[in-house]
Structures are given as C-alpha cells and as structure tokens.
C-alpha cells in the first residue's frame, strides 16, 4: 500500500531496527510522504545518519477505540526493507516485502483458521520437549459437545417424536421403547457425525475450508486436535456398535427382519455418507442419504418399534421430516460449496448456481407443506398436524434470508440458524399434531 491512503488508514507508525546495544528498537516515526517512496522523520534521540543502509521494518497500525472500552477495525501493514538517508534528516524506506492483516478483508475467524497448522505444530513441538501430549483444553463436556456436534441430535429427536407421535395417533405408545429408540439412533447419529469429520478431514474437504461456521465446515475436532484420528476411529466405531446393540435388542423385541433391515440401511448411509468407496456426499447423493436416513429410516423405524407395523401412516409422516432435515444440510452446504468444489466434494449445492440453489430451496420448502397437507387429506393423520403450517412465514423468512446472505459465509450463519429453527419447530409441530390429534379425535384405525 502506498499513497495518501497509507496516511489516511493508519495513525501509528513505528520503525524497528537492531540498535547498537543488540536490542531491537521501535521508534515512533513521522511519515512525511508515502507517494512513490515512503519518507520518514525519526524522533530526537536517534541519529538518522546511523540508520543509513540498515535493514529495518516499518509498521503502520490502526485500531478504532470503542467508547465502551476495547477496540475494533484492526489492521496493520509491516514493510520490510532498508532505510537510506536522504536530504536533511529524512529517511527513505526501501520496501522489499510487505505483509499485514485487515480484519475487514480477512475476518478474524478466517485469520484464526488459516493459522491452525502453526498452532498444531507448536503443540507438537512443546509436547516433544516436555514429553507430554498437548491438546486444546475445553473440558470433557465441551470437547464432547464439539466433537459429536451435540446440538445436531435435535434432528434425530425430531424424527423420533414424529414417528412416536404417528404411532400414538394409531393407539400405540411405549415410552420406554421410545427412549430406547432415541438412544440407539442418537448413538448412530454421533457415529455418523464423527465418521463424517474423520473422512472429510482425511479427504481434505474440511481442511481446505477456511471459513467454517458453527453450522458448516464440520466439527473441526480433528483439525484442532481435540481428538486424534485414531481416537475418532475408536469413537465412531463405538457409537455405531452401541447403536447396533440397541437396535439388535429392539429387533429381538419387535421384529428382527424389519428392524434388521432398517439398521443395515441406517449404518450404511451413516458410514458411507463420506467414507470410501461410496462417499455418497461427494457424489451429490448426500442430500438423498440424509432425506432417507432422517426421514423414512428414523421416523418409520420409530413408528415400527411402537406399532409393530410398516404402513402408509408412518411413511407419510416421515416424508416432510426427511425433507426438513435434508434442508438443514442443504442450506449448511451453501457456505461450504466453494471449498467443497476445491476438495472434489460435489454436493447438490456445489453443482448448482445460485438461482438453481434458490429454486430448489423454494421447491423443497413447498413440498414440506404439500406433504403435511396430504397427511389429513389422505386420512393418514389428524388435521391437527396442519398446525405445522404456522411456520410457513418462518420458511419464507428462511428463503429471503438465504437469498440475501448467499455468498457471504459469515452472514450465512444467521440464515443457517433460522433454517435449523424452522426445520426443528416444524417437525415438533407435526409431532405435536399427532399427539394432540389422538387426544382430540381418539385412536385412528386404518
């Protein structure tokens, strides 16, 4: 950077060099001009003639102090080069290299993200020196929270409640089995999240993502070193095994063939969502996998555990849930798309242009309400499920918000948050519709 903008954008200028006593000195300087050459005046106490030909760096720094304390608008540039004495007592700075940071150009979270490797290397070298293994310390709960992406279990809970609600509407309800179903599915969901992180890190999709958000870019647990690759493998295998264990128990209790098939399907989709050789998410099949897994498999599975039958009531309840949970993934893929493309992860969003993504989002949102409407129309559920229509304005807000923030990774955080809220609330309202419907209209028979 040269010219008047250097003087306009920065207030603090310091020239640093190694002084005669061997210590570095940083002296305040006055930048006389910054047009083609940077010219400086040094303060009294330092003889400019003694600086002739010295290697030095010139730092230009800016912050905007806040009235409430602290500051914002951080930016700085470091010019590295040599100083030459010119007429009078002025110095000319010959720039050989420059670098810096401006938080408006590289937001702080991205600045942090691109420095991750340096932090990991520091931890590793410190570990070697002290003979210990160093990891970022978050405490057990927050490490677990971050590693398994705990809040995302709401998606599983939503499906279980809708499946349980549909069964309740048909006159079946066993709360112990419902809890057990949720526990088994939660284990599989945590296994899915960890396996997804493990393979996305291994295959590079999470590594190249410089702008992760709380909703996208994976948990980063492996990238930040919260868990090692081998720990992640052990953890996802354990979660899958625990999920299968609960599934086998339920299968023995309620129907080995049906539940066995649902477990095999669920584990297949969960593991091969990102794992080779299928890498479903990398082939544009991730959305279909999530729709199938969180819709028919979870909702119908829960419905079957409760009612002992696989029928249209359960299937119909599962479709809007599948679309809504798939929409969480779909919108979360938007900020990741640029990095997913870089890593060869061809998600549906990465394959489409903005108009394509937005058109499909509108279609999916409309389909959600269409399928909800079909539930009472086809007499596969009570009219009270139509309470879910109250989220239609929220869906409209999601669409507008995504449309506005598309292309801005950090602004998309509010869109993704709104979309998660919309999906989860709509699912909960469908579930509530079944429970209330049974209480209002009595047990439904096929």
């Amino acid at each position: 950077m040269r010219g008047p903008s250097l003087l306009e954008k920065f207030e603090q200028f310091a020239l640093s060099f190694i002084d005669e006593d061997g210590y570095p000195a940083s002296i305040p300087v006055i930048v006389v001009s910054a047009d083609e050459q940077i010219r400086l005046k040094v303060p009294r106490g330092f003889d400019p003639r003694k600086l002739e030909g010295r290697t030095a760096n010139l730092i230009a720094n800016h912050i905007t102090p806040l009235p409430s304390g602290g500051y914002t608008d951080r930016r700085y540039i470091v010019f590295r080069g040599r100083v030459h004495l010119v007429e009078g007592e002025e110095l000319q700075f010959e720039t050989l290299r420059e670098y810096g940071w401006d938080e408006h150009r590289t937001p702080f979270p991205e600045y942090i993200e691109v420095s991750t490797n340096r932090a990991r290397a520091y931890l590793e070298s410190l570990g070697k020196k002290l003979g210990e293994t160093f990891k970022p310390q978050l405490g057990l709960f927050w490490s677990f929270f971050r590693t398994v992406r705990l809040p995302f279990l709401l998606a599983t809970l939503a499906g279980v409640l809708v499946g349980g609600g549909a069964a309740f509407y048909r006159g079946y309800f066993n709360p112990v089995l419902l809890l057990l179903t949720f526990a088994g599915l939660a284990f599989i969901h945590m296994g899915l999240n960890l396996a997804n992180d493990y393979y996305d890190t291994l295959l590079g999709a999470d590594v190249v993502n410089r702008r992760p958000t709380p909703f996208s870019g994976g948990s980063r647990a492996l990238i930040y070193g919260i868990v090692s690759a081998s720990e992640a493998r052990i953890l996802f295998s354990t979660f899958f095994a625990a999920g299968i264990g609960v599934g086998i128990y339920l299968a023995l209790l309620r129907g080995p063939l049906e539940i066995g098939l649902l477990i095999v399907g669920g584990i297949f989709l969960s593991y091969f969502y990102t794992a080779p050789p299928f890498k479903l998410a990398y082939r544009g099949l991730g959305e279909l996998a999530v729709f199938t897994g969180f819709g028919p498999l979870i909702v119908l599975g829960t419905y079957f555990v409760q009612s002992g039958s696989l029928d249209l009531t359960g299937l119909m309840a599962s479709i809007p849930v599948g679309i809504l949970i798939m929409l969480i993934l779909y919108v979360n893929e938007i900020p990741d798309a640029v990095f997913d493309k870089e890593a060869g992860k061809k998600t549906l969003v990465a394959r489409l242009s903005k108009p394509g993504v937005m058109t499909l989002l509108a279609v999916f949102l409309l389909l959600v309400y269409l399928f909800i409407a079909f539930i009472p129309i086809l007499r596969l559920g009570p009219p009270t499920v139509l309470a879910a229509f109250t989220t239609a304005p929220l869906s409209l807000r999601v669409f507008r918000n995504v449309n506005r923030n598309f292309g801005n990774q950090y602004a998309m955080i509010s869109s993704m948050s709104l979309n998660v809220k919309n999906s989860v609330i709509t699912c909960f309202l469908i579930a509530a519709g079944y429970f209330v419907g049974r209480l209002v209209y009595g047990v439904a028979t096929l």
Partner: protein
Amino acid sequence: MSPLLPPEVSEVLENSLVAILTVVNEKGLPISHPMLPLFDRETQLLYFTSSILFSKKLQHIKNNPKVSVLFSCREYVRSKNYHIVMLKGDASVMDEDLSTAWTRLLNLWRRKEPYIERYLKQRYAFPLFWERAIIEVRPKTIYVWWRGDLSSEPTIIKMEEAD
C-alpha cells in the same frame, strides 16, 4: 519485584490499548507485532498473551529474549497524561500451561477489553485461540518523549541503575 517505573510511564503502560512488540528473528532481523499490553503495577512487569495460532514470535523470543515495546499514538492511550514510551527489555515465554496460566492476567485484560469474558465463554468455538502463552517483559532501558513531543530529546531511564 522489578525496580519501580516512573509513575508517568506506568500510567501510559497501564492505559495503552495497543503496543508494538518487536522481537528478533533467527536471521537477527526485527519483527514487529501490534499487541495488547498488560502492565502489572505490583510486579512492575509487562505482559502479553499470545495464542499458539500466532506462535512465531514465541519461538523468536525463546531464541533471543531481547525485545522492545513501543507505546505511541494519543488515541490509543486512555489516560489524562500522554507520553510516548519505548522500552527495551528481556522477555521470557511461559508455555508450560497454555490452557489456564494466562487467565491470571484476565483482570488486566478485562480492564482494556471489557467484552473479553463474552468471547471466553465461547471458548469451544475457537479452542486453539485460547491456548495462550504468556510473554513476560522485564524493562531494562526506557525512552520517554514527554507529552509525545518527538522534537525533544527523550529521557532515558536505565532500570538496573535505578534498582
């Protein structure tokens, strides 16, 4: 405890929002970093905390402890009196406990960035940022340009002599 700094200098160090820390790299060249300075009046030592994300300076200090710190720019010093201060000193890096040792400086940090607690509560969001080493600077020579007047000779204070 280190020798006492003149109260006017302590006032600047205590109230500066930013300081330029200059370290010496492996090639013997100066490298400057704008940092949040934390001055402890009790120990008369100056502290910085550095995330391991930005750890090059830590390695540089370990290799060569000689540093300088500049406090300048009126807008950045939130005290009634303003002087430009440059100090040269010896730094040490404390990184045996990156997770919690730096929190002993939280009171000093909070005074300058009152919102820091809010970010700290979301430690899980930026786990590596909160793994921080402490840089402790023991001032040896201090240059003071009174009232920020660069056209006047600075007062030079040798801390060892003052001890």
